[in-house]
């Protein structure tokens, strides 16, 4: 598992106008990049964290709770990596165990019952690969969230703010509208993992980053992301307030639109959104 590397501080400052996919990977993992807690504190009032999945434990890699967004009560879920090394370790670098996903689901089901919109923040290298995680059903926890989120009877707004690491990211990432910060990434596998499989050489991650099409621009073009949120030149870590403000404006705009739509219409559109990915593939002449 590759964490945000040292020596990245120089990368951003030296960036040309259009960073390469590999440079974007570095920005997305930058140790100074605003974390989910920064967005929660910057966007919401009276954040009230809720703990535990009622089954096994409380996963510090997953934040969940209730809050006010400009007087509107909402539910929040999000991966949390922590701000410094000590916190990173305590939060397991934002890599949840099954109980993290089950806590998030519990709070989302509460939101459904109380008719609160859900806002989900994605920033994780992936679901944690460990013995306990497997014993307690990491795969089942992720699968359950995907199914439940696809038909949760309340609006879901997803913001990919940092790393979107595969199934562990998607497990809180199914929604009506998917927003993505310009220098966030979202991928089926890390560039390092991809390079290790393809070329048996993790050091060729730069090539893999380009091949995987993991930037916001790529995902927007592929129809996976609905809107790209612009970042300050060089990345959000250079001006966190600016990025947080951009995210706040986008959340306000989309929440207003989502809340106007009847839930049945929203659910039909949500299903269709995922259903149509890959419907373009009939063999010629059939």
């Amino acid at each position, binding site marked *: *598992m590759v964490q945000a590397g040292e020596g990245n501080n120089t990368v951003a400052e030296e960036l040309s106008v259009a960073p390469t996919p590999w440079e974007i990977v570095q920005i997305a993992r930058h140790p100074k990049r605003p974390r989910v807690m920064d967005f929660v504190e910057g966007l919401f009032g009276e954040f009230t964290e809720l703990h535990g999945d009622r089954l096994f434990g409380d996963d510090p890699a997953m934040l969940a709770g209730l809050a006010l967004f400009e007087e509107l009560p909402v539910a929040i879920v999000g991966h949390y990596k922590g701000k410094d090394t000590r916190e990173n370790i305590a939060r397991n670098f934002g890599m949840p165990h099954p109980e993290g996903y089950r806590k998030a689901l519990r709070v989302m089901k509460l939101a459904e019952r109380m008719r609160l919109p859900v806002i989900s923040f994605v920033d994780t290298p992936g*679901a*944690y*690969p*460990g*013995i306990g*995680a*497997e*014993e*307690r*059903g*990491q*795969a*089942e926890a*992720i*699968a*359950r969230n*995907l*199914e*439940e989120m*696809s*038909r949760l009877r309340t609006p879901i707004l997803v913001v990919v703010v940092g790393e979107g690491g*595969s*199934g562990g990211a*998607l*497990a809180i*990432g*199914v929604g009506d509208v998917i927003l993505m910060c310009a220098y966030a990434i*979202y*991928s*089926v*596998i890390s560039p390092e993992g*991809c390079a290790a*499989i*393809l070329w048996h050489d993790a050091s060729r991650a730069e090539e893999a980053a380009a*091949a*995987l*099409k*993991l930037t916001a621009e*790529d*995902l927007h073009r*592929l129809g*996976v992301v609905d809107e790209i949120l612009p970042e300050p030149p060089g990345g959000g870590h250079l001006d966190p307030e600016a990025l947080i403000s951009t995210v706040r404006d986008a959340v306000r705009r989309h929440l207003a639109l989502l809340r106007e739509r009847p839930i049945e219409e929203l659910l039909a559109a*949500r*299903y269709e959104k*995922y*259903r149509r*990915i*890959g*419907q373009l*593939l*009939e*063999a010629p002449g*059939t």
Partner: protein
Amino acid sequence: MLNWLRRPKYAQVERREVPAGLWSKCPRCKALVYRKELERNLKVCPKCGYHLRLSARERIAVTFDPGSFVEHAADLDSRDILGFVGYQEKLEEAKKRTGNREACIIGEGTIEGFRVVTAVLDFPFLGGSMGTVVGEKIARAAELAMSKGLPLVTFSASGGARMQEGILSLMQLAKTSAAIGRLRDAGLAYISVLCDPTTGGVTASFAYLGDIVMAEPGALIGFAGPRVIEQTIRQKLPEGFQTAEFLLKHGMLDMVVPRTEMRSTLARLLRFFGAPRETRQEAAVP
């Protein structure tokens, strides 16, 4: 396309896995087994009970009543959407070698007379990996089951999401899980059979969403692969970790079912679920 049942059932796999001749060597206990006997025993070693892997066509042949299987969506064809290095060649090679267009076969058939819709993953085709077409076929199978009012039975054998289709593969986790959600809302039963090996994105989506989840003895099942876990935690994994028996013990499976009892077990469950039964039963011997 539908005449495959008349082809010699095991020719392809036999050629690859064992030396030519009348005898096969069990990969586990190394016993020499008369090939006819191995086939009669559904490719389960009569000496040690080891379950050899089956291709999707073989799986259909040993599971469904002879002549009952009708394939759907056979023309769906994968393309190299992202322009991923080496993917087109890999696809062509897999098509040529397996005689299939993709890593999933869907259709309708009967099991001891009970009518079901099925989706079967084909491990020999790029490790049974799920890209857009595999995801599309799973979704179509769920929708076919709904339109016919039939239960769904899936057989999984997969390394996970297909890396070469990047984020579009990841989105198939959401798509297939959403489709299973609709099946569940429609009140139809879904039985998921996990075969050796089933890992990654397939376990973290439709395969773990069965009303019943069962596995073949000894099957490797998990979200993260054992190598990834070992590298992450830097210790040896316990004996039997991520086997079907391990998952049963940890409450992650309903049952472990030997291949020779699979048909009768499925039929019994289908009867409990009130699956419609074909009135005219065909002879049980091919």
